[in-house]
Each structure stands twice: as structure tokens, then as C-alpha cells.
């Protein structure tokens, strides 16, 4: 198939960006979206044009490195990561717009690459269970009921890609936060720090410049790992409990 691509190009963090239009030919529907961009980059280089910078690593949908706004949708039209999107989701002759994640807290580094280190700093604020190496009791000492274990797992599958932020009109990271708070909060091991965790993580979230949640739900709709929206309810509940405990 033949496609027209409108791609955001921006030389560096402080440079002014803009859209460039390119065409690609001979794209097979079995190719992944990123392989289509690889092909574009090979062609651009042959013409002496610098390739489009974009992030990707595992290309198996698990590392969370890739992430593009594809015709206005975070990760494109399917519920998956950009790397797992295949060209069979597009049709011959289509025009596709490709942009980086747009959020104040995710500044553009170059072209389609953004800086998501704010997520790491949110985890640093409290997204862990404090246990030094060697200090652990036997793994079978604390049974975890399967329902809680499954709920914890379902939210632990977050890959930290940032699609939730990119899709949210407020650029809020509450789904990311809620997923971590639920993952650790559902487990007996996570109880000791439950209150401080949620308070500290929310404070860091706001400090980084992410917006507030107004229950729009774009985040859950665009999450490639289908983290459910109710983790945000869990987050609010935990925050309420923590606030009461502090009084």
C-alpha cells in the first residue's frame, strides 16, 4: 500500500517544530507500524534527509518505550502499543498524522521522542515496598487470596508508556498513579506504607506539572494494557483514608 505521512519534526527541545509530509510505497499489511517508519527512514537517508527520531525498544508491547499519537489517537486505532500496531489496520492511500506525546510534563527531546522521566520521579516518591535485599521472610509465609493477587497483577501490568497522559485533555497521570497504588495496596506486603505512598506520589505528580483528573476516561480507553478506570477511584479512596489518618 501507499501512504501519506504527516510527521511532527522538531530539531531539539528548544527548537520550533512543524509538520513535514512524506509518502511511503510498497508497505505490506504484515509490517508493523514502526517497520513502516524504519522503511521511511531508510528512504529519507538515501535522499540525504535525516531520519525521523522515534523511540522503540522491545517491539513486543511490554517495555513501554514506544508511543506515538497516530491520527489523534494515542498508540493509534487499536488497543495496543504502537509497536504492536500492524499496517493491516490502515488502508491504501490513507493519510496518517504522527505526533509525539503532548504534555507539559513530557517535553519533546527531538521529533517524536519525549522525556518521560517524570514517571520515574513519581515512583521514587513512594512507588515501592521498602525491603532491603536479604530481609525477606519465606515467600509462602503470607498467603494472598487469589482475588487480591489477580487484581494486584492486573494493575501491575502498566508499562509506563504515558499514553494515558497523552490521551487526557488535562494531561493527568492519575491512571498511572492509580495502577501503582492499587498494585501495591492490594497486597499484604504493601500495607505498611500505604498511606504515605499515595500522599507522596500524588504530591510529586502535581509537582511535575501533570493535570488533575476530571473523570473523562480517555486514559483507560487508550491504555494498551487495559488498566481499568476504577484504579482512580481506588487512588481517591486511599488518599481520603490517608488524609483522615493524618488528622
Amino acid at each position, binding site marked *: 500500500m501507499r501512504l501519506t505521512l504527516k510527521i511532527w519534526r522538531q530539531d531539539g527541545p528548544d527548537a520550533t517544530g512543524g509538520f513535514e509530509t512524506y509518502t511511503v510505497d510498497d508497505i505490506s499489511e504484515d509490517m508493523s507500524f514502526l517497520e513502516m517508519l524504519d522503511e521511511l527512514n531508510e528512504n529519507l537517508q538515501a535522499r540525504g534527509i535525516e531520519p525521523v527520531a522515534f523511540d522503540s525498544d522491545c517491539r*513486543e508491547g511490554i517495555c513501554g518505550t514506544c508511543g506515538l499519537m497516530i491520527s489523534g489517537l494515542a498508540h493509534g486505532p487499536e488497543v495496543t502499543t504502537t509497536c504492536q500496531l500492524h499496517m493491516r489496520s490502515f488502508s491504501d492511500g490513507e493519510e496518517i498524522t504522527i505526533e509525539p506525546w503532548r504534555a507539559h510534563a513530557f517535553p519533546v527531546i527531538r521529533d517524536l521522542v519525549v522525556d518521560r522521566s517524570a*514517571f520515574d520521579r513519581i515512583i521514587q516518591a513512594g512507588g515501592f515496598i521498602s525491603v532491603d535485599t536479604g530481609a525477606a521472610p519465606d*515467600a509462602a509465609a503470607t*498467603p494472598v487470596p487469589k482475588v487480591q493477587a489477580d487484581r494486584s*497483577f492486573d494493575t501491575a501490568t502498566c508499562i509506563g508508556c504515558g499514553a494515558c497522559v497523552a490521551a487526557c485533555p488535562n494531561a493527568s497521570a492519575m491512571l498511572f498513579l492509580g495502577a501503582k497504588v492499587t498494585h501495591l495496596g492490594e497486597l499484604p*506486603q504493601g500495607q505498611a506504607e500505604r498511606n504515605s505512598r499515595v500522599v507522596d506520589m500524588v504530591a510529586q505528580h502535581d509537582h511535575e506539572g501533570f493535570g488533575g483528573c476530571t473523570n473523562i476516561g480517555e486514559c483507560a480507553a487508550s491504555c494498551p494494557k487495559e488498566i481499568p478506570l476504577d484504579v482512580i477511584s481506588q487512588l481517591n479512596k486511599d488518599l481520603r483514608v490517608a488524609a483522615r489518618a493524618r488528622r
Partner: protein
Amino acid sequence: MTELIDGLYREGEPIADSKAPDGPIETRWERHQFENALVNPANRRKLSVIIVGTGLAGASAGATLGEAGYHVKTFCYQDSPRRAHSIAAQGGINAAKNYKGDGDSVYRLFYDTVKGGDYRSRESNVYRLAEVSPNIIDQCVAQGVPFAREYGGLLDNRSFGGVQVQRTFYARGQTGQQLLIGAYQALERQIAKGTVEMFSRHEMLELVVIDGKARGIIARDMVTGEIETHLADAVVLASGGYGNVFFLSTNAMGCNVTAAWRAHRKGAYMANPCYTQIHPTCIPQHGDKQSKLTLMSESLRNDGRIWVPKNAEDCDKDPRDIPEEDRDYYLERIYPSFGNLVPRDIASRQAKNMCDEGRGVGPAIVEVGPDGEEREVRRGVYLDFASAIERMGRESVESKYGNLFDMYERITGENPYEVPMRIYPAVHYVMGGLWVDYDLESSIPGLYVTGEANFSDHGANRLGASALMQGLADGYFVLPNTIRDYLAKGPFEPVAEDAPEVEEARRSVTDRIEHFLTCDGERTVDSIHKELGSIMWEYCGMERTAEGLQKAIGLIRELKTEFWTNVKVLGSNDQLNQSLEKAGRVADFLELGELMCIDALHREESCGGHFRAESQTEEGEALRNDEDFSYVAAWEYATKGEDAAELEPVLHKEDLVYEFIEMKQRSYK
């Protein structure tokens, strides 16, 4: 030193001491930890350690050393340590917990790992790995890793290839992700505390060696292009494997050998580089524009049955129309006692054999055969869940493998609940890596190597669910207890930023970058990488011959010249430049590929993942030659003459002695 052998390499002194302790194997590690010197807590903060790579092996070591109070600097090329490729491991992690009461023990895990590795690993190391394995599970559960549980709330286990007990802990098909998130969170906790300094989007491009000791690294900030010097008392490489030398592999796009190779060029021996694991269950290649291959977890072989049509003329039929009696469940036929759960090397080679016989399935792909002629071959075999769905019900199959089935459907557009999956082997893991002694210290004092980047525990073939085990064993429990013996001798003499060794290392980095940016040739980096990959896959892949390897060495040397004279890298150094990053990696892959072929050529036996067509049993199984080859081949970097156009490495042998396990021809029949 000896004469040039086969015109390719020389033999040097054997390795005298691997520091492996002696005595009863059960007490070696405990005794060794006691004998290793301690560093008192007040002195730890005066000692600094650099860790390159933040996957399981690097993040766990970083967190643990940080907790202990050392000053740690960690580096990764990704934008966050949470993205390292350990995250993609699907199936599980082994541990000798014996929660199933099915006869498992530390000794059995040790035995299985040595046998699975085809008797090419060091006994003391493997025993230690098995010994610390239960602690890993304890640690991870305490961190909040959500392993699969049974209804009673206790941990569940599954089976994996090459063993007959259920010792694999798992978190659906995302075990690596969950373990890495655990280690990442422990690391972030230390970053918040200030014991660990993290450098993301940084790539190590050179090792600094002063007075024979590793004292730092030269790294490039991939966003600004700045070349930075980082100095420390010790350096740890946890930089992963080099499977991307084959271009197509299940590794992440960024996985590379550069950190390890720069250390190799500075004197660290590279051990058994030809031992490559080709994983049997990957999604077959779809075309020549493909950027990577995708693994389907080995756990699928627990319930899926592998087959090809008995008759070549059935190969293009709808598999559902092929009656039972016309199907060849070849693994169950050839290996009745292990069936579909034979080790990876065997499962892979048999899939290749079936396709070579003309009984492969899926689209026919044009390839160049060993004779140099083009031919069309179907490269795929079926992995069929019809009987599992019938036995367990679709729902149970979905709960066990749902995410893998979804991934398969997304990539291929076929529904595996209805039509059997098609799979084919792909490069997945390398057992080879930098040589280390029992302390995980390389041949350069003060340079330690952990995880996939070292060669240490898997011999010539790694068992499933053992990579995660090794990465975390090294990082949480082994390295922190061995490196202290070295650090106890420090803090070492401070190094000046303008020391001649530092200046030289920086110059080597900037010269290379300058060359790539001004070469102005015709070929893109990727096109050369692809060409290298197809040479490696054809001649140094699942089956190797002396003739093919010799040919490959010649081809790689030509390609190396082509690369250095005709590569084209656009843009500049002072900004994010992904082609420039790749150019440096491919330069090192080219040299590594040459060494891999030399190693494969010199090892005139078959063992584990290394199959030499000249050395096989009458039934076509790998035939070891213990008399001549029961050693680790540790290669020292050397070139023919001054310029590095051709390698002429020096071989140092470390003899493998088996005191506890009897060496046998492996049999899974």
C-alpha cells in the same frame, strides 16, 4: 605462545585459577562469603561503583549495593531503567523451593542446569545459583511481585523444558516484567535516598583502565551528545546479551555488545562467544522488511503439541483438514519421555530438520542455501492447542496463555484458538559472554560482569526460566558478596580527569564518532547490520560447518572494510542521533561476529546450542568431544598487525572438572 592455528588464532597460557573454592559443594559458597573481606558501614560511602545496564542483573545489584551504603552510579541507554529487555521475559523463573513436593531440591536444580548446559559450565557456579534461587523468590514476593497464586493464596508453579519437576514461578506471561518492576522500584527507592545516581539515555562507549584496574567509563549523553568521564573504585557490566549480532533476534532493538566489547578490547576475555541459544517457539519471519522476531513463551509447550504434516504435499493445506494419522508429532515420536518439553537446542534443531526435509508450513521464503543457490523453503511448524482446548476448556487455556494468544493474533492476523500457531526458532539468548571467575570478576581487576553479559552459569545451553534466576542471583546475592572483597582494598588512589589513560579513552570515543559523521559513504548502518545478520544466521546459526565458518570469516572481514569506508551517518553529535548510536554498535558487532565464527570453527564438537554438522551421533544428535573440548574458551583480544582489520585472538583455556556430576551424553528420549 603457540604458532598461528588455522591461520586464525594463537593459544596462550591456560587460565590458572577460577577462584572456585574446593571441598564439599554444599558449603563452598558459605565458606567463600565468610572468607571474603568485609567493608565496615562507615567506609562504604567512601567507595564508588559504576554499574552499566539496569536490567535484572544491574538494577538488583544497584539497589543492593545502594542499600549497603556504597556510592553507586547506574547507566542505561533506555529512557528509564524500567525498560531494560529483561522486561520481555515471559515464562517464569526457576527456584528450588520444592513447594510442589515433587522431589525437587537444590541439588536437582544444580544437576538439571549442568546437564541442560551440556556439561560446559563450572560446577561451583551452578551450585551457588541453585543454592540462592529460593532467596530470590522470597525477596521478590516481599517487594510486591504479583506471582501467580492458587485459590488457597499460595504460590503456583509450572513446568519448563528440560526438567521433570514443577519449579517455575510465574506471573502470567509477564514474569520478566514483574521481576524487573520489582528491581526497578528497589532501585528508584535508593535513587530517592541518594545512594544511587541514575544516568538514563547514556551509553558506555569506553572503559577506563589504570594500572591494570578498571577505574571508570566514558559515556555519551544520548540527548546532548556530551562525552562524559565517570570514575569509580570498581565497574560492573550488566549490559545484557549480544543476540542482535544476527540482526533479527528476539532482543530489543537497542540491545548491543558495545559495553562488553569495549571492555574486551581493553583486556577482558570473551568466553565461549559461539554459544547462542536459538529459541524454538518464535513467530516465523513474514518478510525482508522485518525489524525483529517475537518470542512465544516456552511455557506454551506445556500444553501445545508440535507437529508437521507427514507428507510434504499436505504442507499448503489448511491444518484443520489434515487428519490425525497424517500428522507427525515429531518431538513426541523421537523423544517419548520428554516429548514437547525437550530442551531448547533440541527442539529448535528438529524444527529446522523438518523444514529442511520439506515438511515445513506457512509461506515459502526465498533464501540462499549453503551451496550459494537460491531456494524456496517453508520455515514454520505447527504448535497446536486443539487437544488442550478440548481437555481443559477454552477458558482455562485463555487464563493460562491469553496474553500470548492475543499477541500472536495481533502480529499474524490469525486466531490461534481456531488455527494452530505457526512457530520457528529464532536467536534469543547468548550463553557466551565476558569471562568471569567465581567472584564474577573479569580478567581485568575491578571489572565485574553479571547477568547475560557474563558467560558463567549456563554452559552451552540455557534451560528455560533460568535467565531471570541468574540475573537476580548475580545482582541481589552474589555480586554484593564478592565485590566487597575487592572494595575492601580501596578506596583506591584518586584518578585525575586528565590522566593520560582517561584522555586516551576519550579520544578513542571522539575519533570514532568523528569518523562516522564524516565518512559520507553510500550505505546506511541498518543495511550493513542486516547483511552481517544474514551471514551469521546462515553460517553461525543452528548448524555450523568448518567450510561455512571459514567462508563467513572472509565475508565478515570484507563487510567490515565496507562499513568503515562506505557508511553514511547523517546529522551531528550534539543532539539525539539514533543512526550515530547504531553505527557504534554495528562497528562492534562486526568484530564480535568474526570472533564468534573463529570460536565456532575452533570448537570441533557439538554441544548444546553449538551444533557442528561434522560432529553428530548416528541419530543426528549433538556429539560432544569431552576428551578435547571440556574447557571454557576464553579469548583475549588481539589483531593481525597494528590496524584492527583482522582479528587474531589468543585462546586461554579454563579446564572444566566435574567432581560431582558424571558427564554423559545427554538423552531426553
